[in-house]
């Protein structure tokens, strides 16, 4: 890991300690910038990043940071057999027909107090939509993970972080490359565009292994 990344990681830990446990929970120690009570956007070019979002919420469910996962919009529905059994039993699938209905459902879920990870199809969402969700996320105990097409990367948004999901070419098994595009809490880190590789099918509680990618392009386990 580069020196800059180390410094930012330490700063993040200090900030988390100061802000309390809920601000940056341990379940996201591998993605320190992803926190509860905020909106995070995930871009993929071909299809919604169902798998990456499923793994994020799996880890949150296992760490008891979230109690429910709410999938909004048929486009983001994962194949249920792909899901971890605990996530599957904690999942609700909402088939909302249009952007207005998806926005309403996501807003309602975030404000419901159900401690839910809300995964929504956010295609065609405007800046006003993301602002509304950001406020809803702040008022509740959940987190909003919005799946957006890569073509909307230039659309203005109030999301706290933005991520790019791509297939990991060099991985032997199924894997994805996650690139942090924006982080309002830590703009310096986002400017460096740090990347992580997420491997599915690894042995462990949630079947996932994640490690950062250093500048040279070689992988190194983080923890």
């Amino acid at each position: 890991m580069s020196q800059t990344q180390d410094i930012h990681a330490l700063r993040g830990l200090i900030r988390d300690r100061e802000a309390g446990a809920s601000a940056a929970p341990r379940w996201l120690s591998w993605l320190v910038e992803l926190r509860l009570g905020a909106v995070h956007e995930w871009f993929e070019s071909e299809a919604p990043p169902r798998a990456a979002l499923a793994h994020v919420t799996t880890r949150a469910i296992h760490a008891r940071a979230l109690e429910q996962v709410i999938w909004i919009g048929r486009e983001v529905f994962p194949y249920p057999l792909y899901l971890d059994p605990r996530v599957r039993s904690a999942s609700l699938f909402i088939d909302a027909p249009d952007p207005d209905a998806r926005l309403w459902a996501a807003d309602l879920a975030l404000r419901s107090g159900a401690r839910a990870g809300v995964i929504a199809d956010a295609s065609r969402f405007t800046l006003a939509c993301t602002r509304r969700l950001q406020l809803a996320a702040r008022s509740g105990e959940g987190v909003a993970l919005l799946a957006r097409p890569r073509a909307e990367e230039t659309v203005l948004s109030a999301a706290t972080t933005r991520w790019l999901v791509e297939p990991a070419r060099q991985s032997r098994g199924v894997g994805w490359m996650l690139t942090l595009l924006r982080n309002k809490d830590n703009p310096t880190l986002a400017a460096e565009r740090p990347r992580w590789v997420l491997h599915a099918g690894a042995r462990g509680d949630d079947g996932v292994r994640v490690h950062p990618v250093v500048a040279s392009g070689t992988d190194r386990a983080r923890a």
Partner: protein
Amino acid sequence: MMVSVYIPWWRAERIARGPEPRPDAVLIARTRRGQREVAGLCGAGFMAGVRPGFSIAHARALLAGRRVHDVDEDPPGDACRLKAMARWASGRWSPIVGVDGVDALLLNVAGCEHLFGGLEGLVRDIERAVRALRVTPFIGAARTVGAAWAVARYAPRESRVVTPGREREAIAPLPVAALRVDDEVVAGLAEVGVERIGPLLELPRASLPARYGEELLLRIDQALGHAVEMIDPTRPREDLLASREIPGGTTRLESVEVVVRWLLTHLGAALARMESGLRRLECTFERLGGAPIRCAIEVSRASRDPRHLWRLLATKIERVHMGFGVERVTLRALGLARLAHAQASFAGEQYSTLDDAPFDAPLAALVDTLASRLGRENVMRAGLVPSHRPERAFSLVPADSAGPLSGDTPPIGERPSELLTEPAPAEVVALSPDGPVMRVAWRGGSAAILCCVGPERLGPEWWRSREDTRDYFRVQEESGRWLWVFRALHAGAWFVHGRWS
């Protein structure tokens, strides 16, 4: 006066009303001693000579050349439906309506005839309303249950309404079976040449019990009105009502909302006294000079929380057209279910009013609100189905429905995160039919394959023998993306069925 509404084919007629293509004849089947036999049939089957008790094969032979649909009988379901029909009838013609066997209703209409212009008018009204349900009724009316039962089934149409005091003449020409006696008794009387009720009534009364049992005399007495016979009425559904009149009517939404909230609070209090909650709430707005408007909400678990119910109802009320004014609002609680006892107050803190009611579990409230706007079928949970076919291995069921949701699944990574709704045809280059896959072309693109894992053979379920066995491969494209492709063994065609996205 008693009315017997005999609807012998209603079970088959209900199924015959199903989706297209509709069958020419429907048979209700039951299994007895290992053989499927006819338990019920429709009018077309009856006209073709089919009778209950025939084997299904025999019945199908009689109906040769027609599209015949046979379904297994559903006694509990049919009993519920018939009971529902009895409740419906009790709200229209008489409060005393009972279920008679599996295919008839009995109504005690004493004192109700004048509302329909006499007994003839009442019978006509019943026939018209029952026919509107698209079933065929045979209706008999008489002073006694026995006579009404007999004429409904055995008398010609013009003599199915019996004038009081003329029961003897009405049933005399009917067969002995019209007295509701066992087949053995009917056969025994037939042996001595007594096949009609008239000659039977001429026989010395004292000699009958010794030969044919006490029941025969009882049935004769019941038919002639010498013995009492009561209807066991269907109990009305346990609904709870709260209603309030608005003098002069109002077109102001705010006023209607105040009334509904007031009613909800009182309904919640009544439910609390019963230690119950409701699953469905119907709200009726009676309007000046217009038809009443109804709206309904359903909740995922029984609730009596006025605030929660108001949240769901408020969006419906906004869309109600007030017309010239709403003059009465009625709330009807349906699907009552027992709720655990909840403390009504503590240290002077009251929970029974709208503003202070404790809120239900957040998730249940969320599910109800979502279902209220998007529809119950669009708020789902995922359940597993014991099938190794990927497209049938799961089901999305309404979130408020009960059902098994757990099951064994393959390890994470062996199934894709996205399963295509329909397998997409693909052009595949493989070294051999069993793989490895070298190139996949689908949806207008083509990519070389870096890695191929498989095959995993998934056969069809044995009862779906027409389906093809599939060999599944996990393949990685040049871009790094993984696809789930399969080869249909007999057809030899390749398809993409999913991807890890």
